[in-house]
């Protein structure tokens, strides 16, 4: 089940085939799906042939450092892990059984079943290479037939994952329930065929991509969007009552350096409360960047231009507005005196802004209300709780500790939605 370039006629045929397979999928118990998936995860253990091959392929294909790719590949078994799958399903659906049959609810005589939407087109983002695998696993766990459109820069790794499914899945539980495909961006006919005929599209990526899939959808085609997001950190002055600058800085840097800021949950801006000694905290951040154990990835020429723009901005702020710019070989810190959340040039570039109180913070982030994702916070429990309560009103969909932004808890929603639930619809049976 390896990747293939697809055109309109084949796309329509594939969707028809997908409908048949999707029906077959419904008769397979979720427990069996989880078991096979777990087996797939096992062959991706650290140092396994798939692991080694993927490390080689991805190091060639992507700009991330080898260490970064290594660390990310370690996550593959956990994506497929049976205990994790069970925990996720329980957290989102209450239990496994609803995926197999009608289950009773608390209302007398009311039974519900979690039903797959059918044929799902997954449009994978290229920024985090595990994204398409994660999305495919969600497809399996919801008994959906998955058509995964690969991003331009990430082909070989998904093909390797497909190969591992074929090798493990001797009973044919998963291996014919998905297809990896790609088509040229200019091939609007094929795109149109998918948009008109699949049951749902789950789109991960940038604004223009999400917009293009919104348009021309069939009446029955559900759109599940995970468009562009921005994440930030908040460090309260009381964070340092019990913790040292070095400790908070070390954790803040994890959120910036992991994946070289390419994840939506990567911190781009750190808001530092007025009372904090900016220079001392800055020094701690510099040390933490220098000590971060995973090497930074390679920048593209276009990345370098974004970095130049930020360097120029930083230099101007330093000369005229009292800002400060510190740049090292693998990081950039810009203490920007102008208020307001904004985009960082990424590749380990953190913009630091000051805030006085929560009202001030709200005014600085409010223009981005619809695009806020994660807020990493360091402060007393009281300050964290207060922020979490307000942040949810501001549009933030996840609040966590600084240092945890790019990881996440099992069963937690993503972008404010439960991912498995998005791929399902509930059928009720009222007796």
């Amino acid at each position: 089940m390896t990747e293939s370039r697809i055109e309109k006629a084949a796309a329509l045929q594939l969707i028809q085939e997908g409908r048949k397979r999707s029906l077959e999928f419904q008769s397979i118990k979720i427990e069996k799906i989880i078991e096979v998936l777990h087996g797939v995860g096992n062959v991706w253990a650290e140092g396994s042939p798939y692991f080694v091959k993927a490390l080689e392929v991805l190091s060639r294909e992507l700009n991330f450092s080898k260490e970064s790719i290594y660390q990310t590949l370690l996550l593959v078994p956990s994506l497929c892990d049976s205990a994790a799958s069970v925990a996720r399903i329980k957290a989102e659906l209450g239990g496994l059984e609803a995926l197999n049959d009608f289950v009773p609810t608390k209302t007398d005589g009311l039974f519900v079943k979690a039903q797959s939407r059918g044929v799902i087109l997954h449009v994978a983002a290229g920024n985090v290479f595990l994204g398409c695998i994660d999305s495919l696993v969600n497809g399996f766990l919801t008994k959906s037939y998955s058509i995964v459109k690969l991003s331009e820069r990430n082909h070989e790794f998904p093909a390797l994952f497909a190969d591992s499914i074929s090798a493990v899945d001797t009973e044919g539980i998963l291996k014919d329930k998905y297809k990896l495909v790609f088509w040229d961006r200019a091939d609007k006919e094929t795109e149109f065929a998918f948009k008109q005929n699949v049951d749902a599209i789950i789109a991960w990526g940038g604004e223009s991509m999400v917009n293009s899939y919104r348009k021309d959808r069939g009446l029955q085609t559900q759109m599940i969007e995970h468009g562009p997001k921005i994440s930030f950190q908040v460090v309260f002055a009381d964070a340092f009552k019990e913790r040292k600058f070095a400790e908070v800085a070390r954790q803040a840097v994890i959120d910036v350096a992991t994946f070289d800021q390419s994840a939506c949950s990567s911190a781009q801006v750190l808001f530092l409360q007025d009372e904090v000694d900016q220079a001392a905290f800055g020094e701690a951040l510099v040390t933490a960047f220098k000590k971060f154990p995973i090497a930074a990835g390679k920048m593209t020429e276009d990345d370098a231009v974004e970095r130049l723009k930020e360097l120029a901005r930083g230099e101007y702020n330093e000369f005229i507005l009292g800002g400060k710019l510190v740049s090292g070989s693998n990081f950039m810190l810009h203490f920007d005196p102008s208020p307001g959340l904004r985009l960082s040039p990424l590749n380990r570039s953190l913009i630091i802004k000051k805030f006085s109180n929560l009202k001030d913070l709200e005014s600085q982030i409010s223009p981005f209300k619809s695009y806020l994702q994660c807020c990493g916070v360091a402060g007393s429990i009281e300050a964290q709780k207060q922020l979490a309560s307000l942040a949810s009103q501001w549009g933030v969909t996840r609040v966590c500790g600084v240092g945890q932004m790019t990881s996440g808890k099992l069963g937690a929603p993503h972008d404010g939605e439960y991912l498995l639930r998005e791929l399902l619809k509930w059928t009720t049976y009222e007796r």
Partner: protein
Amino acid sequence: MQVTQELLSLDPFDFSEKAKQLFVKSFSEVADHHYRNNQYFRKLWQKHDITPGSINDEISVETAPSIMVNLFKEFDMSSVPENDVALVLTSSGTGGRKSKIFLNEGSLARVKRLAFNIHKALGMAEQEEANYLCFSYDPKHATDLGTSFTDDLLTSFTPRGEVFYTFMWDDKAQKFYFNEPGTLAALERFEESGKPVRILGLPAYLYRLLKSYPDLKFNFGNRSWLQTGGGWKSFADEEIPKETFRLFIEQRLGIPAQNVRDMFGMVEHGIPYVDCELGQLHIPNYARVFIRDPFTLKRVPDGTTGLIHFCCTYVDSYPSISLLTTDWGSVGQCSCKLGGFTLNVHGRAGNVKHKGCALTSIEMNL
């Protein structure tokens, strides 16, 4: 700006040693003005341990610190008192923030003069009256846009007949729209008049118009010109090679291919880089173009693609005399008689994922 006036009295394509040395002196002169009147410029030069007085040869121009173009979009950067500003121009803002450029009377006069000189040297300034069709915004409603300023300038190289702007303002909708019927009528009117025609502006709209009316043909004759500029913008998917476009225009409008000239310009850097008859953008002696590696900012060899770095001397009201752009380009040579070097522009630099993204749009409006 005595030396700069002297420079502008020379032929723009005079590359004699004397002319080149005059450019260096002119650069030193204008740098001195910014050094004295612009705090950021001065601090930048001080950081690089360089003074305007040390600009005395081509190498010193090349190594003078540059200001990156995004700063002109994010900060007001003027080197003259507010009272001296005669005109504020903004860029078209394609895919990003708009630059705000402050021109005083002197800079305004110089940019007009140098543009005239360049067009004259290319045989594009004439005494015969011409009708103008401008594929741009009606300046009555878009007085601060750089593109409108450019149109106004480009219609000044001949006595003006009728000037028709294709993008009209809709009072009700409060936005510009492409006036297709009006444009078609103007083309017919211009052909009937027998006067030479000059068509200016974005190539995509003219191309799309002619493509949508396959039977539409005009014969505007050898004294007519088409001068494009601004690239294909949001119609990049439909862009055709320059040579094909030139032949298409010759066939459909009867304007000789050698009279179809593209131009590259920026509101932050007012030197027009105009095609010669062979379709190559020429660098006049009023400017220097260096191509830089985006990682090291070192100059790359001619023919190699990198970031375009422009130097010029005409402007003392804002400090863009050494401007690092976010455009990819390379420097080459041409076999035509103009001499000097040519500029090839290869498109926008920077991450596409940041462009056209809602997040970026929010930033633009802050």
